[in-house]
Structures are given as structure tokens and as C-alpha cells.
């Protein structure tokens, strides 16, 4: 029996094609993936991302302790800012957590710092992948210090809604007043949201309840992600869709949008044993003077990783899929030089696109690459990432 988000009933009543995803009943799509994708690129899409794990971390020493658990620095994270990070831990997922096992990457996550409490308690929200939530929470709980920090999984008592697309904030100062958020937030808050920088976050009130709004997303578009009380989710969703004109979007378009934006997905671009540097995630690890699980292993890889993440575009609409082999020919011989980590038809490019990890040497020799897709070799071109970058208007 899948878990249900506070919006599951709305999805079912509105033609959501429900599937089990990481133990949750979630909509893949309501209409078509392509129309939801393009609707987000051109206007505003709204996504139920309540399946994502939300973990509250609090304590007088919370920043220092979190910094010892994450690959990014935390102590210098200002209040009201979010940061992308990896969570490292040790392998093994069942039974008692062994704190001295082999270091692995448990997940990627966004860590957001909220304002301290009056008594000096530091507060953070960690948003993790649904598929890794239990294991991350178990790991964090297992390595808690004797006092001073608490870890609280608030996933099931809360909801999370992403609102993404150029219509959310528009291009000019007051454009947000035309966007879907106007139907949820009063004018004063709307202006604060419009003033947020990328990866900024605002903790505010909505209908007497606390709500966290972040200028973050997983689509390559401007927009917000809202963490709110489960009881408020349906009302806010309906305001966004029915009054605000935002297009309900499922996990299908969420995946094609994030792929065009070349944003990583755990299980594809990164997994337990991924070298962050060859996965293009060097920016997500701060290793100088740091001490987190696996820092030594990651440190030894810096500068010597022999693989690279690249973007590939196909000539046809046909798409490669995760695990397909990347090849090149030389002197009549075929060589496998890498593999696809994510691939799909791209609604924006109107052809197949893929992220791949390949041996660095093939990039230095400008080899003509091909991908073996279901027994057929398809020519590909290497392109700079991301595949899609939103137009800038400033």
C-alpha cells in the first residue's frame, strides 16, 4: 500500500495517472508529459513534491554538527539561504547502523537555514529524496551527539508544492502580482518572495500556520518550492491551479524538465560510489579543512578522476536510456567509453538528449561518439550543459 500525499485525492479526481514512486502514490501526468513540460517552460507549472523527505534539524550546536555530516559547509550558511549538498554516510541499510563502515554517498539534498529561536537554538530543514529518506534519517539519528541536536522527520505532517515557470515571478518588478502566487500570498509577502535571490528562503505565515518558501526548484525555471502544513496543501494547490492558472504537472515532466536543466538525479547521475568530480558535482563538495564521512576518499580523487559528465544530443527523436553504452570507432574497432545516466526525448529540443559519463580521453581526441540504443548505434553530438538555460532579462 503506497503512502498518499495530502494531494493524492485531488490527483485521482483530476485525471492524474497514479503510479507507485519510492513508496508513494504519485501522478506521472494529468494530460501529456510534453504539454505539462512546455506549459512550465512558457507559463507556470505546479508540482506535488510532498514525497520528498523533509527533516528538521535543531539545536544549539546544529550548524556545527550538520557541517560534520554534509559535504558542503554549513556554518557559513546565512539564515534564509539554501545550499545543494551531498550526504555521505556508510554502507549498509538494514539492522543497526555501523558507524565505521565503508563511506558512501547516501543522497543529495538541499539544506536551508532558518532563523535561530530566541534562545539561540539553530534550525535547519534538509530536503532529501523520497527513496533515501528512511536511510538518511536513520543515519543522522545514529550519529547524533549526546545532547544539543535533534533530528525530526516532518515529511508526513507536511506537504511540499513546487511552482515553476517564467510566469511565477515574470521579468519585471511587479510581475509576480500577475502570477499564480498572488492567489496564495498577500501582497506584502509576495513582494518579499519576488525580492528573494536564487536559493533564498523565506519563513512566513499562511493562514496562521508556518510556511517555508524557497526560490529553488528542479526544472531550470524560476519559481518556488513551498513547505507547508499537510492540512493546508489542498487549499493552496487549488488556489494555484484554479485561480492562479498554474498547470498541474506530474513526475513525468518533472523528470524531463530536470534533465534539460542537467540537474542530477540520485540513482542516475550519482549513487553510493559515485566520484563527485567525474559526475560533474565537484561544486557540491567542500573538502579543504573538512571532516565528514568519506572526505579522505573524495580528497584522493580530486584532480585524478578520469571520467567526465557530458551532455549528448541525438539527431532523431529517439532517446537513449540509463545504462545504454557510449561507443566510438577507431581503425575499424569499436570501443565502449562510457554510459548514459539519464536520457529522454526533450520537448524543448524536440530530439533525444542524454547525460552520460565517459572516459576523459575520448573528449581530448574529439572522437565521434555513438550510443547503442536497443541494438542500434545512433550518432550523437556532445553539447555544453545544461541543454536548456532560461532566458535572462536583467
Amino acid at each position, binding site marked *: 500500500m503506497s503512502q498518499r500525499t495530502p494531494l493524492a485525492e485531488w490527483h485521482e479526481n483530476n485525471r492524474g495517472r497514479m503510479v507507485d514512486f519510492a513508496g508513494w502514490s504519485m501522478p*506521472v*501526468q494529468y494530460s*501529456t*508529459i*510534453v504539454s505539462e513540460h512546455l506549459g512550465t517552460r512558457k507559463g507556470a507549472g505546479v508540482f506535488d513534491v510532498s514525497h520528498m523527505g523533509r527533516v528538521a534539524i535543531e539545536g544549539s550546536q546544529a550548524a556545527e554538527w550538520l557541517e560534520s555530516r554534509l559535504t558542503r559547509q554549513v556554518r557559513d550558511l546565512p539564515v534564509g539561504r539554501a545550499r545543494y549538498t551531498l550526504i555521505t554516510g556508510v554502507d549498509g541499510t538494514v539492522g543497526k547502523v555501523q558507524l565505521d563502515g565503508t563511506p558512501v554517498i547516501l543522497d543529495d539534498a538541499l539544506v536551508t537555514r532558518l532563523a535561530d529561536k530566541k534562545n539561540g537554538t539553530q534550525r535547519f530543514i534538509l530536503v532529501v529524496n523520497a527513496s533515501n529518506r528512511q536511510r538518511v534519517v536513520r543515519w543522522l539519528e545514529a550519529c547524533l551527539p549526546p545532547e544539543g541536536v535533534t533530528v525530526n522527520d516532518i515529511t508526513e505532517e507536511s506537504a511540499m508544492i513546487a511552482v515553476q515557470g517564467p510566469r511565477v515571478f515574470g521579468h519585471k518588478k511587479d510581475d509576480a502580482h500577475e502570477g499564480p502566487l498572488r492567489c496564495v500570498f498577500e501582497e506584502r509577502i509576495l513582494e518579499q518572495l519576488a525580492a528573494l535571490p536564487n536559493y533564498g528562503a523565506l519563513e512566513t505565515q499562511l493562514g496562521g500556520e508556518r510556511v517555508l518558501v524557497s526560490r529553488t526548484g528542479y526544472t531550470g525555471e524560476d519559481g518556488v518550492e513551498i513547505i507547508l502544513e499537510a492540512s493546508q496543501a489542498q487549499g493552496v494547490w487549488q488556489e494555484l491551479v484554479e485561480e492562479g492558472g498554474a498547470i498541474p504537472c506530474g513526475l*513525468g515532466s518533472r523528470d*524531463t524538465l530536470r534533465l534539460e536543466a542537467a540537474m542530477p538525479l540520485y540513482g542516475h547521475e550519482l549513487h553510493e560510489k559515485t566520484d563527485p568530480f567525474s559526475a560533474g558535482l565537484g561544486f557540491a563538495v567542500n573538502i579543504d579543512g573538512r571532516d565528514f564521512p568519506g572526505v579522505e576518499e573524495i580528497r584522493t580523487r580530486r584532480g585524478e578522476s578520469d571520467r567526465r559528465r557530458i551532455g549528448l544530443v541525438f539527431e*532523431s*527523436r*529517439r*532517446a537513449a*536510456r540509463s545504462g545504454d553504452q557510449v561507443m566510438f570507432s577507431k581503425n575499424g574497432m569499436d570501443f565502449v567509453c562510457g554510459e548514459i545516466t539519464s536520457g*529522454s*526525448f526533450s*520537448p524543448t529540443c524536440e530530439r533525444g538528449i542524454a547525460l552520460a559519463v565517459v572516459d576523459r580521453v575520448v573528449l581530448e581526441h574529439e572522437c565521434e561518439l555513438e550510443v547503442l540504443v*536497443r541494438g542500434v548505434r545512433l550518432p550523437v553530438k556532445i553539447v555544453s550543459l545544461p541543454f536548456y538555460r532560461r532566458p535572462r532579462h536583467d
Partner: protein
Amino acid sequence: MENSRRYAKSHEWARLEDDGSVTVGISAYAVEALTDLVFMQLPDVGAIVTAGESFGEIESVKAVSDLYAPISGKVVAANTELPSQLETLGSDPYGSGWVIRVQPDSVEQLDSLMNQEAYDTLIGG
């Protein structure tokens, strides 16, 4: 009844034509379930297809699916306009959205396929 459509469990339809060939397509239900079609691979004319085995592929944004031949025989025509107009599969799945025509080894094979009523029960259940 002889000229009405028959269906495979894998959602292809087959229809016996007056000239003894069998037209093969994809049911409206399957097209609706696939959604977001982006690519189709057809066999060449002259290819031999075998009932229950793959004769082509259809790809949506989410996944690739095999097309299974509902009947064995030789491909005598393929709807080559279809791959560039995949929307026809949804708008006219039993007419201009046909996929291939097969000269069947044995017309009797059609009898092992579902009639409309049986197929409606399958997709309704």
C-alpha cells in the same frame, strides 16, 4: 464478422482485408495509455513477422515498447508516413493510423485473437 477487427493481448489489432491481406495497428486504448509518442520503428516491406514476436518499436517520452505481430506472415506494406505523424495513431487508430499490412501464412490464426467484446472486457477489467 469476418472483416471486423481482432485484438492481441498486447493491444495490437488485426483486420482481414478483401484481398486476403491483414492490416495491423495499435488499439486506441494502447495509444491513450502510452501517450507522448515520439518515435516509431517499422519493419521493411518483405520482412517476415511471427505472431507474438516483436516487429517494431514505439517509444514514448517515458518508455520504449515493442510492437508484437498478431499474426505470422510477410510484410507487404508499411505506413511510412506514420513515424513522422504519430498523432495519427491517436486521432485515427483504426484508419489512417494503420501500421503494417501482412500477407498471412494462415488466416485461421486470426481466430485465436480476441473479438471486440473480449477485448473490451480485457481493457475494462
